[in-house]
């Protein structure tokens, strides 16, 4: 293919002259998507860098080990090598959940108690209010440091007294920031820091208390990883959880990366939409250029020249859109840390790295060229004879092959970009397929409606209404790209909203008026009657109670747990199910929130103490994770004793119901005599009464934790709201892209419409009639986009809620109708405002064909 550089360069320079006017809005469509993708990329990079740079400060050590059992003689051999390498004596931390009561305000709350013995933290610092107060930690007897979020929740001030267990402590300072926590974690489970000596005074730790023992080490570089690698199996067997800098970094980056990757997909959706805009713009451009290109071809330009000129033009457009995207991303970079406040593990200031800029530019160029390639190849195939005969089309069969090749390239591009963004083949491919199918469905629905309007035009409407509606399916209309753009934007926003509503609703599903809202943990048998009386005194009653026995799995279906864990190919779910600590319960009848799905319940009272193996009931999802069914044997380790069981039945549990739900249920006879605690559930409508009850529980039953479930739900709501805001903000970019496409398409059709308007003026149409026609068209187009996008979003949300979250779908119809109406109104207003309603020149000029 022959290309003349000088000619191509001269023509390209000339084409670029009008490009800003012609492609400005299309470039903006692409730029919006690029800016979102780049900003999220920059956020992820910044968080990863900060986590890597500051992981020691975030973890507070080089190595942290934790165990539910106190480190004893049996672990000495395992820990000796790492203790020998420690640069300073290891710090020991005892951690447990406990109630805290602010004596002045009378407010109480479940807190995360950290009792420290040794230097803390080994790296970084604990930032307090007043500043530097933590330097005196340990020097002041009965002095505690508490998270500032807890100070707000309990209305505490420095110097106030706080009761923990049977003792009263003085609040020395509020903790603004300390290793191991960030954002919302501090709100959901606020921490109280005290010395180990003070913890011993509280009397909270007794035999059988649910306590985590931690040790922090300061080590030479790489020592922790080497030790972990050499002892992984032994640590696993000893149930010691290890956190090195590397694993901690990975965990933090992974958790945050997951969020940004999913949000990145929303950004990618905006980019795809921008690409659709560019493709639509290029197609309109090609339509205008056919005659000019035919002329160039007739006077000697080769197909290669045509390809080079317009390929160069699309490159320049991609470059310009990328540059604009960089500019647009600057304010977004400032806003993102605010939008993601509470979700970030570290404080970050965002900036664009040269690599991010290059990636943005390349992505923009690639997306633009990929979308423009089809229309450009059409231009290159324009036969020179068209200069003589305008009806002469291309006869090249190669165009078909070219179109297929381009479709493959574009689809592959979307697929690769999605996989790259999601960092998962399954999710990326799912997203790409979902997006392409959605766009196809939107397009087909729009075409079908256009066909319907063409075939059955509304005959009873006024002339202007008929004319406006008919414009939707007239030659060179912009119905399809606009419907896809606006419909897709609405689709993304409405789908996110529907899924969010359904999932959130499920989290707070138990809407019964008497649903339990107070949970009492760690209740000892001899405390049950006293607590029952206390609850009754506050006008409430216990709605549910269950014994709890801590256990771990020893073997499943005859295969040792350790042996199963050694197999690296087992699924994540199965690993989790094998590793976790179980809270077993016992009762002899299924509960209201449970449904037997396989096997049968044992006959109440028929299982005796010596009927080993005991029949047990397993939750169905857990059974699936462990790969067991009815009749399989499972062995449990309960406080050092191995107990053999056989799966008698599988249960489906309604986890959304506020009740004592358990994965594993034993017969009463099997566990009745085992050391156990109880959990009690009660309903107390009045918030003040709940607070009073909690206060009295702290004073009268110091070891019992009383949790106000409404507070937890409120914290979760607040966290989901934060994520929801981030998602919605990003979704709005898709809407912005959609509107940019609408404006671009509307402006592209302006010239054509101006001619029509002039002709109608010549034929006697008044300006007001022209205005009404334009408004009717804008309204019809907006309605089409809103209907198609709204319906598609309901279908997509239903699929996501059913298939991904496995929840029943209940469309938030009122909200969806509101969103659809908002999209409709916005589209109608923007479309109406940019439409040609009254030609500026006189009708006679129009007839002379002198419209500039």
């Amino acid at each position, binding site marked *: 293919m022959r290309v003349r550089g*000088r000619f191509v360069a001269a023509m390209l320079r*000339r084409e670029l002259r009008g490009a800003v006017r012609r492609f400005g809005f299309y470039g903006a469509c692409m730029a919006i998507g690029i800016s979102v993708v780049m900003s999220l990329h920059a956020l992820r990079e910044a968080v990863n860098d900060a986590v890597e740079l500051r992981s020691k400060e975030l973890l507070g050590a080089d190595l942290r080990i934790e165990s539910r059992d106190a480190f004893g003689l049996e672990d000495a051999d395992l820990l000796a090598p790492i203790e020998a390498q420690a640069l300073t004596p290891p710090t020991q931390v005892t951690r447990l959940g406990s109630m805290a009561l602010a004596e002045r305000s009378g407010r109480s709350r479940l807190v995360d108690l950290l009792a420290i013995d040794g230097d803390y933290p080994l790296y970084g610092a604990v930032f307090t209010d007043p500043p530097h107060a933590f330097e005196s930690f340990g020097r002041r007897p009965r002095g505690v440091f508490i998270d500032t979020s807890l100070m707000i929740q309990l209305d505490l001030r420095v110097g106030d007294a706080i009761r923990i267990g049977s003792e009263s402590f003085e609040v020395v300072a509020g903790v603004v920031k300390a290793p191991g926590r960030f954002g919302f974690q501090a709100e959901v489970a606020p921490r109280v820091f005290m010395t180990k000596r003070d913890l011993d005074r509280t009397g909270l730790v007794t035999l059988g208390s649910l306590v985590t023992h931690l040790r922090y080490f300061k080590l030479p570089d790489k020592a922790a990883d080497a030790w972990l690698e050499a002892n992984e199996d032994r640590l696993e067997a000893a149930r010691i959880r290890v956190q090195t800098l590397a694993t901690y970094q990975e965990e933090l980056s992974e958790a945050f990366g997951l969020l940004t990757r999913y949000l990145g997909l929303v950004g990618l959706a905006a980019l795809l939409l921008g690409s659709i805009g560019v493709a639509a713009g290029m197609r309109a451009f090609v339509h205008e250029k056919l005659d000019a290109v035919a*002329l160039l071809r007739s*006077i000697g330009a*080769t197909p290669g020249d045509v390809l080079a000129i317009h390929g160069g033009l699309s490159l320049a457009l991609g470059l310009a859109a990328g540059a604009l995207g960089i500019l647009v991303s600057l304010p977004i970079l400032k806003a993102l840390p605010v939008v993601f406040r509470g979700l970030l593990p570290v404080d970050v200031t965002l900036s664009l790295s040269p690599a991010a800029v290059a990636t943005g530019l390349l992505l923009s160029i690639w997306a633009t060229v990929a979308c423009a390639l089809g229309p450009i190849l059409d231009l290159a195939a324009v036969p020179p004879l068209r200069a003589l*005969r305008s009806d002469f089309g291309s006869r090249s069969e190669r165009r078909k092959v070219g179109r297929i090749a381009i479709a493959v390239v574009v689809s592959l591009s979307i697929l690769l970009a999605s996989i790259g963004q999601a960092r998962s083949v399954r999710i990326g491919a799912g997203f790409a397929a979902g997006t392409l199918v959605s766009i196809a469905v939107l397009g087909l629905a729009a075409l079908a409606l256009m066909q319907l309007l063409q075939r059955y035009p509304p005959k009873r409407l006024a002339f202007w209404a008929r004319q406006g509606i008919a414009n939707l399916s007239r030659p060179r209309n912009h119905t399809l790209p606009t419907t896809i753009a606006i419909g897709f934007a609405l689709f993304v926003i409405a789908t996110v909203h529907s899924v969010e509503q359904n999932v959130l609703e499920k989290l707070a599903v138990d809407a019964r008026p008497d649903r339990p809202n107070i949970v009492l943990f760690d209740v000892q048998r001899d405390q049950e009657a006293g607590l029952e009386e206390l609850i009754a005194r506050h006008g409430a009653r216990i709605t549910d109670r269950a014994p709890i026995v801590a256990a771990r799995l020893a073997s499943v279906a005859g295969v040792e747990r350790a042996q199963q864990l050694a197999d690296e190919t087992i699924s994540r779910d199965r690993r989790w199910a094998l590793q976790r600590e179980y809270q077993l319960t016992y009762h002899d009848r299924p509960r209201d929130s449970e449904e037997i799905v396989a096997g049968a319940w044992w006959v109440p009272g028929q299982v005796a103490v010596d009927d080993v193996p005991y029949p047990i009931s397993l939750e169905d999802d857990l059974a699936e994770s462990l790969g067991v069914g009815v009749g399989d044997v499972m062995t449990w380790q309960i406080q050092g004793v191995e107990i053999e069981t056989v799966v008698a039945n599988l249960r489906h549990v309604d986890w959304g119901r506020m009740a004592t739900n358990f994965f594993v249920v034993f017969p009463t006879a099997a566990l009745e005599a085992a050391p156990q605690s109880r959990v009690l559930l009660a309903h107390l409508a009045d918030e003040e009464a709940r607070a009073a009850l909690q206060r009295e529980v702290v004073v009268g039953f110091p070891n019992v934790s009383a949790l106000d479930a409404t507070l937890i739900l409120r914290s979760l709501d607040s966290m989901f709201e934060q994520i929801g805001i981030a998602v919605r903000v990003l979704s709005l970019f898709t809407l912005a892209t959609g509107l940019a496409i609408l404006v671009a398409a509307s402006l592209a059709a302006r010239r054509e419409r101006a001619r029509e308007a002039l002709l109608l003026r010549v034929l006697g149409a008044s300006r007001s009639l022209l205005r009404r026609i334009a408004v009717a068209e804008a309204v019809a187009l907006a309605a089409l986009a809103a209907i198609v996008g709204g319906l598609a979003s309901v279908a997509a949300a239903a699929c996501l809620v059913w298939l991904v979250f496995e929840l029943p779908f209940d469309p938030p119809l009122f909200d969806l109708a509101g969103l659809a109406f908002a999209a409709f109104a916005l589209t109608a207003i923007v479309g109406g405002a940019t439409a040609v309603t009254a030609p500026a020149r006189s009708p006679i000029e129009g007839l002379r064909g002198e419209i500039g």
Partner: protein
Amino acid sequence: MIVARHLTQRYTRAGTRGAARETLTVLDGVDLEIRSGEVVVILGPSGSGKTTLLGLLAGLDRPSEGDVELAGSSLAQLDEDARASLRADRVGFVFQGFHLVPTLSALENVLVPLELMPAERAPSREAADTIARGLLGRVGLADRLHHYPAQLSGGEQQRVGIARAFANQPLVLFADEPTGNLDRATGAEIADLLFELNSQRGTTLVIVTHDLELTRRAHRVVHLAAGRIARIESCV
């Protein structure tokens, strides 16, 4: 300069209302020889194949049968790029609908063929600019160099078209109804320009027209009917 041998052009089109595909013979075995410097007008009723013949003679399309030898090159032997190069080097066009590139100024429209010329013959950028300005001055548009087509009248647009057609100093100039979209007076002016430049440069002119004024000034008139040459009339 141009030799057409047994030129036949057929188009196949889909039959309407389910009918079988039909083949339409637009040109049927046309033989024609045009000498260097000659002015030939092709006349004929609508649908007689005039424009098709012009397109084939200029190498804008390939015939179904037969061959054209243009300026010593057999078009059948040339691929698409080579035919484009031949057009850029040896051929000029004037169209009924002017066909100016709407996004280029008058000057740039005339510069385009100069930029498309083969490297060995192409003038420098400065020289091209001088040539283009000279030609626009020659057609009376020296004060309209930077106007866009939309800012020019029909007659002015066709003048730019003529300037552009002569820019690469073509051996052959093909004109398709060059005065068809113009009023009588402007048409006469354009015809004068065309013949004036032709006589100055010795360009071969092949014109498809209904304009009697143009026909009267031709050396020969080829009458086409139903895709065949009905007769050839020598005028001078």
